[in-house]
């Protein structure tokens, strides 16, 4: 147990170092653009905490980022590089909204039905990539990515076409009925009860990694041969993992749609897909790590916007910092991996 704590401590320290390094490189870039990095970062930080509204926004961003990070981590543990969280988020939102708008049921029944629709559609969207991998060996990186573009255009098609709000000219759907919207926690602030669902997803993820299903998912990440040898049905597990991973992103889409916008609209996924990848990696695929990393990124997102407003530093610096963090993290992970190999002390090649 002690050892575990020490390991976790080391990992956390490593993650902090990565973030610090990324911020440092970011600072250099800010300087190059002729701005004061200290000023930029302090604007960023104060921008995230300066008012009740801002703190509320922090949690508004935290919900989708953390849920999607958790969802993607499920696939990554199995070494399934699902980078389609964005598309799964969109498809989940679309399905939920469509059900919410066009199915006539009392809200008590309709609300869970919309959630189920989001889970089924988003899970199915990810499952498609899983199926293509299992059946045709199509690389899931490429397929999930292409599915992102397809989902994106499909959303555009809907909000400009069949699902366009009849009452307006904007590329967005009509609002879902009030009875199935997720309510705000405090009046006047945008933070909503999706926060509670986020906590539920977190707990479920923690439980997943303690379950036999989690064991299977982790095992297929260790290699197909050893998994088959252990009697695990690799194909079925891949499909299930992809479904879970996508479904979780769909839940995030459902929350975002029903708790914030109450409708689908163009570009609604923003850069959540990328951020989910970054927080999953920065959090070392561990639920607690992902929670902390998500919080950090929420600060970046909220503060970054006010930094762009207040100083001349473009918002894209936030993207740059994301990319840098990924690169530092993977370079660092390998660094740690090397130490393990060294410790192993294997002798020559006389085998």
């Amino acid at each position: 147990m002690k050892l575990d704590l020490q390991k976790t401590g080391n990992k956390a320290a490593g993650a902090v170092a990565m973030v610090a390094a990324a911020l440092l490189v970011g600072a250099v870039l800010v300087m190059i653009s002729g701005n004061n990095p200290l000023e930029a970062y302090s604007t960023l930080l104060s921008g995230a905490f300066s008012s009740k509204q801002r703190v509320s926004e922090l949690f508004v961003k935290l919900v989708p980022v953390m849920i999607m990070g958790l969802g993607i981590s499920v696939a990554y543990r199995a070494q399934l590089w699902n980078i389609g969280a964005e598309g799964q988020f969109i498809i989940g939102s679309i399905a939920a909204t469509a059900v919410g708008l066009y199915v006539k049921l009392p809200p008590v029944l309709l609300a869970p039905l919309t959630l189920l629709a989001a889970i089924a559609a988003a899970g199915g969207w990810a499952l498609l990539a899983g199926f293509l991998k299992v059946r045709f060996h199509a690389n899931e990186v490429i397929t999930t990515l292409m599915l992102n573009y397809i989902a994106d255009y499909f959303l555009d098609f809907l909000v400009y076409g069949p699902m366009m709000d009849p009452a307006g000219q904007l590329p967005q759907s009509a609002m879902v009925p009030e009875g199935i919207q997720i309510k705000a926690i405090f009046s006047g602030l945008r933070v909503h009860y999706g926060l509670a669902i986020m906590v539920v997803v977190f707990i479920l993820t923690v439980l997943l990694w303690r379950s036999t299903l989690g064991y299977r998912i982790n095992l297929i990440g260790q290699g197909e041969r050893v998994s088959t040898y252990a009697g695990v049905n690799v194909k079925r597990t891949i499909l299930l993992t992809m479904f879970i991973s996508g479904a979780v992103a769909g839940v995030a889409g459902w929350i975002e749609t029903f708790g914030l916008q109450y409708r689908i609209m163009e570009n609604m996924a923003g850069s959540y897909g990328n951020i989910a990848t970054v927080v999953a990696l920065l959090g070392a695929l561990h639920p607690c790590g992902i929670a902390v990393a998500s919080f950090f990124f929420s600060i970046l997102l909220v503060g970054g916007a006010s930094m762009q407003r207040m100083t001349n530093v473009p918002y894209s610096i936030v993207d740059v910092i994301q990319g840098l963090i990924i690169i530092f993290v993977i370079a660092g992970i390998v660094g740690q991996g090397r130490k393990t190999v060294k410790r192993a002390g294997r002798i020559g090649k006389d085998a």
Partner: protein
Amino acid sequence: MLEKIFTTGFFVSLLASTIRLATPIMVPALGQIYTQRAGILNLGVEGTMLMGAVTGFAVACLTGSLWLGLLCGMLTGMLWSAIMAWLSITMKANQVIAGLGMNILGAGLAAYIYRVIFGVQSLPPAITAFQSISVPGLSDIPILGAVFFQHNALVYLGFLLLPLNWFILEKTTFGLKIKAVGEHPRAADSKGVSVAGVRYAAVLIGGLYAGAAGAFMTIAYLNTFTEAVIGGRGYIAVAVVIFARFLPVRAMWGALLFGFASALQMRLQALGVAIANQLMLMLPYIMTIIALVFASNKAEFPSAYTIPYSRMER
């Protein structure tokens, strides 16, 4: 409606733009053939192309020289891919994640550079792009002339890379070394080939090609830079290489297929055909998936594909 489609003019312009649109996919794909043959999967092509696009545009805009822009775009692509090479070869990092990270970083940095140089302007800056050159004599051939011989200089250059690629891979010692480090790095090492050296070279060449294709988008295809200028072409190029089973000529056919899908979408759009624009835009991406489905089962991947090499380990 149909009579508007089935005209010579429609087909000529469709095929001509197929070729034009195939170029920025074929060129990075040819580059990635080196990279992937050497055993490295560089998913960061998208980001590399964006970096090439922004540098190419900025240099062309600031100096007024398109060729200098192209050159700088290529060099940037090469330098940028050097980071990927360092991550995947020296640091032995997971190539999928490294590529993703390079894309996120590339997208952010390209946008950042653009904003820092050009600021926020109501009218985005534009340049005069490469103009089409009619090849004397050949361009006058009816139909074929318009399809094949009225393109800008970079399209011709792009297609010249094709025989060059084949020649280097099949007839030179360097090509042999690339294949060897991708197939059996230990054997190559034991015969005195520097595995890391050849792999670095293969990744850098891939970056050079991707940078050129990125610059093509801003200074030859369009005349301005937007953050969405690459639009997934980098990923499509990677898919084309797998689709082409790592062979240059097949990569050309793959790229033409994608060029055709995009061109068809655009031409039909221009005619006002009542298929929703967004659904047509999906075409290339759907085709990529279909292509992967058909190619992946048959493709003989290099044995050391995505596996880092270390002399000390099995």
